[in-house]
Structures are given as C-alpha cells and as structure tokens.
C-alpha cells in the first residue's frame, strides 16, 4: 500500500509541477459550464437542478479523459523512465494502480473546482442536493472507467497522439453504444449477443440513471468492474511490452 501511495504522490505532484494542471482544470471548468449554460440552456429551463450540467459530462470526458490518460504509460516508455521505475523494488501493479489513482484524483480536483455551479443552483432555488451529490459521485466513477481504458491504451503505444485518439474512439463507442448509429453499424455484421452486449455497456444509460439520483448496484458494479478489468489488462500489457 505504501508503495502505491509513494507512486501516487509523485504522479499527483507532477501534474502541479508544470502548467498542465492549471490549463487542464481551467479547460475542464470552462467546458462543463459552457455546455451547461449555452447548450443545456441552464437558465432558460428555470429549474433548480444540475441535470444539464451533468448531462454533458460523458461527451466532455470523451476528449478530456484520454487527454490525461494518454501520457500515463506512453511517455514512460518513450522517455525510458519506465526502466527506472520498473527496476525499483515495486511490482507492476503498484505502478499501474498508483499512476491511475493519481490521474483519477486529479480529475477529482477538476470536478471539485466546478463547485460554484452547485452554489449557484442553491442560490437560485432549492435543489435536491442528494441528487447532485450522487451525480458528482457518478461522474467521478465514469471518469475513472474512462481513465482505466485510457491508461490501458496508453500502455499499448509509445505515441501519445495514438493513445489519445484510440482511447477517445473507444470511449466514444462506449458512450454511444446505446444509440442507433453505433448499434446499427454493428447489427449489420456482428452476432446478436455482441449487439445486446453493446447496449448493456452504454455509459450513457448507466450515467443517466445516476443523474436522476439513482446509484444502483449494477451501475456501481459496471464502473468498478470496468476499472478493475482495464487496470488488470494494463498490468499485463506493461509486463509484456515494457522493454520493447
């Protein structure tokens, strides 16, 4: 545990050592708010809730989460620091989990910085703060699942750009997977069980439940199992091709 914590600390501090953290958090806040106000018509709706704020998170995460995840391993492999890291007395899973948690915590910081939105609705009306709290948790969980996917993809390549594009694409498919556009594409050639599986793994379906204030066991299981699965795959990939 202590070793995971040390890796976490280094990684987390690294975000704030450079301008990356400040630029990222600013963009994160700007994007989430822009979507809520201009596309979600936050004021026009005249309702004291943050539904329109959370509603666009999956779409924003398609771009913003892979942007954080892309460097996790691709950069280590490209610069050779992976050799430094993996010859220290830590296991691959220590490193994978520590790095993942640091990135996740960083996204958490970005989410927390959006709190003026929460204050605003409380100033304007009497929202259901329980729903908002649950939505924040849900958004954070979803970000974790995206991150685990992004971290896994980042381990597959030395090229951060490729890691970003591939991770974005996978996240896009997962968000869109309940939409006819994606389902229709697969329905033409893939067997039925693939199509129904895709429908079930839609991030959107799960997330929409959460924004209504409902965290169900299947949804929790869905996000955590995605995280566990992709971090496990991430570990295997690092073991296999760290030296290549």
């Amino acid at each position, binding site marked *: 545990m202590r*070793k995971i914590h*040390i*890796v976490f*600390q*280094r990684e987390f*501090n*690294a975000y704030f*050592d*450079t301008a990356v953290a400040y630029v990222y958090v600013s963009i994160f806040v700007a994007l989430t708010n822009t979507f809520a106000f201009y596309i979600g018509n936050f004021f026009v709706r005249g309702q004291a809730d943050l539904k329109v704020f959370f509603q666009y998170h999956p779409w924003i995460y398609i771009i913003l989460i892979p942007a954080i995840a892309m460097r996790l391993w691709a950069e280590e492999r490209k*610069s*050779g*620091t992976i*050799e*430094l890291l*993996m*010859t*220290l*007395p*830590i*296991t691959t899973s220590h490193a994978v989990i520590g790095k993942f948690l640091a990135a996740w915590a960083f996204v958490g910081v970005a989410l927390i910085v959006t709190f003026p939105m929460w204050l605003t609705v409380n100033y304007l009306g009497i929202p259901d703060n329980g729903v908002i709290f649950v939505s924040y948790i849900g958004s954070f969980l979803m970000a974790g699942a995206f991150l685990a996917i992004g971290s896994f993809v980042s381990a597959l390549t030395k090229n951060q750009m490729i890691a970003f594009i591939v991770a974005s694409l996978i996240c896009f498919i997962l968000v869109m997977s309940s939409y006819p556009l994606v389902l229709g594409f697969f329905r033409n050639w893939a067997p039925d069980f693939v199509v129904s599986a895709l429908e079930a793994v839609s991030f959107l379906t799960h997330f929409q439940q959460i924004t209504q204030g409902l965290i169900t066991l299947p949804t929790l299981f869905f996000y955590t199992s995605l995280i566990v699965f992709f971090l496990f795959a991430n570990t295997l990939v690092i073991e296999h091709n*760290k*030296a*290549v």
Partner: protein
Amino acid sequence: MTELIKTYNITKKFGDMAAVKNISLSVRKGEVLGFLGPNGAGKSTTMKIITGFIKPDYGSVDICGVCMADNPLIAKSKIGYLPEGAPAYCDMTPRTLLHFIAEIRGFYNHTRDKKVAQAAQKTGLYGVLDQNIDTLSKGYKRRVGLAHAILHDPDILILDEPTDGLDPNQKYQVRKLISEMAPHKAIIVSTHILEEVEAVCSRAIIIDKGQIVADGTAESLMGRMPYHKSVALSVAQEDADKIKVALYNLVGVIDVEEISRHNGRVRLRVFPKSQISIVDEIAELVRNQSIAVDELFVERGKLDDVFRQVTSSDFLTNSSS
C-alpha cells in the same frame, strides 16, 4: 556468499533474433566487471535481465543468492541501476526525484534526507539539486542517474555506459567514484571506451551477437594479441643484421620480425617465448654489443585490437564473400 551476481544460461529472444544466448556469468564482491561489445551485441539486454527489467526466456538470475524470478522485490532492492542514457522524470528536480526513489526504497523523513544528501555529495549534485532536470547538462543528468543508483548503498551496481557523453573531467570523476565503491560491491559497467576497462575493471567480458566471446582480466585479454609483451626496437640499418642474429640466439626469444625500414633505420619486433619479459636481456645485449638504439620498449596488446579480433568476424566474412 562472495558471488553476488550469478546468471545461469540466460537467453532472450526478440522475435526470431536472439539478443542474448546462454550467458552464464558471475561477479564477486569487490569485482568490477566490464561489459564490452559492439552496438547491439546484447550488453544492455543482459543488464536489463540482471536488473529484473526483462524476464529471460530461459535461464535465471541470482542476486545475492536471491532468485530474481521468485523474489523480484527483494532482489531489486539490492541493486542500483543506471539505465542507458540515464532516463529521468524531466519535470522533477534532482531533489524530488531522489526523494521519490529513496521513499520507494524504504527511507523516510530524516533517513531519506540523509541518504539523498550523501548521494548528492558523492556525485557532486549539490549545486543543482533544486533545478529542473530538464534544464541540466548531459553530465549532470548522468550524475542524477548515478545518484539514484547509489542512493541506497546497494550491494550490486549495474551501470550502463556511465561515462557516455561526459567530458574528460567528468569521466575521471565517475571512474574515481566507481573505484572507490568497488571493494564493497559487485559492479558491472558497460562501455565502449576500452581504456575505461583498464582504468576501472578488474575483469572484462566481451559480448558479441548475444554470446560471451572473451572473458578475463584486461591483461589476459591483451595477452591474446600475439605482439603483447614483445619488444620493439629501432637501430641503424648497418647494425640490423648483426643484432638480428644476436637476438635470435637469446634464450627466451622465439622470433624476430622486421616491421619497417626507412631513413636508414630499421624497426624490429622481438617476440618472447610464452609472453615472459625479455626487455632486460635485450637491453643488456644492446649494451654489450654497443649498438646505438633509438628506441626500445615493450609492446602491449591493445584492447581495441582484441575487441576487433573477437567481434569483427561477421564483418570480415561478409566483406570477403
């Protein structure tokens, strides 16, 4: 336990190409083993296997009697490793990087600061401890790598080209540091600089195409060259024949060879029987016969020549066919 590093028939393939074939070696405490070999010979791969970064396809590695495959964390904790090119997290400063490494290695708070200070002092990093690694010169970056390798005072040091790209002063300092640590550790150093082998290594291994092609002290490797310990001398042309006959008749001389003849001077090379020293006898002979000699010296085998002899076979066969 004096053999701190032991490898048993380690083999590693990348695709169809075997980068390392059946390498077995051992390094004792107090020994500095030099890894020599052309680029791509398998030096770095061998080091990566010993440090546990790569798993070998076959064979095993023992670190202080601990099997790397069975107990990687214990084995790795006994090794200090400077990877090729001394990679480091560029956004960090040497101090924060060394703190990180120290904590991973189990030193906290006061002990951590003490270990970092010692390593920084030994590698001369003090002036730049709080500067971004990105902004450091190549020499300082290499020292940061050395500092984290020696930070926990490991029993085993694996240094992949520690002096590559350094200026002569820095090279001297690094070699001095290695020599100072040598008595208490088992050290492997890979290098392209053959003089370095003579300067710091007590033993050297030449690796070519993934295999050990030569193993011995610098002296014994140089002894592979036929002219090692031969005596070269240069005399006037008119004395040449006389002294040749006299040299042939000396006990301990097996052959005399004429190397060159110009400007009225002849250069001779005298080969001893079984590389014993014959320079005294020759000097006495010259004095007794009162022959004017311009120069007289003992030739030493050059490691460069040994290196070429044992590693260039591929090149030679390719060019002749």
